[in-house]
C-alpha cells in the first residue's frame, strides 16, 4: 500500500529543486538550513532562478553559495550590503539579496547595513540572528542577551562590562529608506510559513523598487548554545522572543 502513495502525483513536499545535493556543512538542526530552503523556494515560486543574485557573508553561512543554484557573490566581512548595492545599481532587473549573520551584519558590518538601508537600495537583507558567534566557537556577539553565557562571557553578559545587546531590526525600522522590516523565526511549522511569506514580500518589494527590506530571522545555534536542537528551539521561545519580539516593525509596502 505504501508503494501506492509514493508516486510523483502524490508528492506534497520535497527539497526545493534550486537547492542542490551538496551536503550542507551546518551542524545538525541549524536554522540556516531551513532559511536556505525558504530562500530557494521563494525564488523558485517567483520564477527568478535566472535573475537572482545572492551575496553571501563571512560567518557560518559563508558557503551559502554552495547550496542554492543561483548567482552568488562573496563579500568581505560585513560588506555584503555594499556589494549588493553595486550589483543592484548595475543590474536593476535582478533580484539582489544579502544573507548575513549577526556577527557580520550587526558587528563589523553595522555601517554598511545602516547606510544601505538608509539609502533605500532596492535590496533585501536576510539577517540570521542567533545571539552568538557560531563559526568561531561561540563567542559573545553584539546581539548576545544580557545574562547569556558564551565562551567569552562565561559568567553571563553584564551591561557594566559588555554593554547592551544591539537591536538592529529596531534601528532599521526608524530609517526612511526601508519599506519592510520584520522579525520572524523558523522554530515551528507555522513560524516557518510566516517567515517564507515575509521573505517573499521583501523580495517582491525590492523588485518593485519600493526600498530596502530587512528580514530578521531569530535563529538557534545549538552548538554555540550547548543545547540539543530541540532544546535550542525551546530556549529560543523562552529567552529570545522576550527581548526580540516577533512581528512586522515597519511596513510601508501596502500603503
Amino acid at each position, binding site marked *: 500500500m505504501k508503494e501506492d502513495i509514493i508516486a510523483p502525483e502524490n508528492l506534497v513536499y520535497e527539497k526545493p529543486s534550486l537547492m542542490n545535493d551538496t551536503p550542507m556543512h551546518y551542524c545538525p538542526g541549524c536554522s540556516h538550513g531551513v532559511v536556505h530552503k525558504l530562500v530557494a523556494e521563494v525564488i523558485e515560486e517567483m520564477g527568478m532562478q535566472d535573475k537572482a543574485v545572492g551575496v553571501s557573508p563571512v560567518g557560518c553561512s559563508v558557503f551559502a553559495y554552495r547550496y542554492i543554484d543561483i548567482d552568488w557573490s562573496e563579500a568581505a566581512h560585513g560588506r555584503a550590503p555594499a556589494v549588493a548595492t553595486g550589483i543592484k545599481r548595475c543590474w536593476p532587473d535582478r533580484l539582489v539579496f544579502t544573507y548575513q549573520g549577526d556577527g557580520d551584519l550587526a558587528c563589523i558590518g553595522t555601517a554598511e547595513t545602516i547606510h544601505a538601508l538608509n539609502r533605500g537600495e532596492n535590496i533585501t537583507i536576510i539577517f540570521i540572528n542567533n545571539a552568538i558567534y557560531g563559526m568561531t566557537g561561540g563567542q559573545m556577539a553584539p546581539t548576545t542577551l544580557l545574562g547569556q553565557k558564551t565562551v567569552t562571557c562565561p559568567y553571563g553578559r553584564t551591561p557594566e562590562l559588555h554593554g547592551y545587546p544591539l537591536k538592529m531590526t529596531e534601528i532599521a525600522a526608524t530609517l526612511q529608506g526601508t519599506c519592510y522590516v520584520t522579525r520572524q523565526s523558523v522554530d515551528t511549522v507555522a513560524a*516557518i510559513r510566516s517567515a517564507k511569506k515575509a521573505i517573499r514580500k521583501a523580495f517582491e518589494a525590492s523588485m518593485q523598487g519600493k526600498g530596502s527590506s530587512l528580514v530578521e530571522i531569530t535563529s538557534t545555534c545549538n552548538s554555540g548554545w550547548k543545547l540539543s536542537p530541540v532544546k535550542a528551539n525551546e530556549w529560543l521561545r523562552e529567552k529570545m522572543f522576550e527581548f526580540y519580539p516577533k512581528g512586522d516593525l515597519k511596513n510601508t509596502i501596502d500603503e
Partner: protein
Amino acid sequence: MGKIKGSIVVNTDRCKGCSLCVVACPKDVIALSDKHVNVNGYPYAVAVRPDDCIGCASCGIVCPDGCISVYKKRMED
C-alpha cells in the same frame, strides 16, 4: 469519504539526526534509528509508525537539510 494517507521518504545519507522532525510530527510517526547510522555516522530519521502518517509535511518543512519528501493520497475504501 476516503481516508487521507501519507508517506515519507527520508534521504538517510543526508540526514544529520537532529530530531527536529521527530518533535514536529503530530502523529509520532518518526523516530531516530536506534541500531543503524548513515555514512556520516549520524542516526537517521525513520518512519516507525508509517500507517499513522497523514502527509501533513510538517517533518519536511522543519527539516534543515531537506532530507524528507512527503506524499499524500486520498484512499478510496
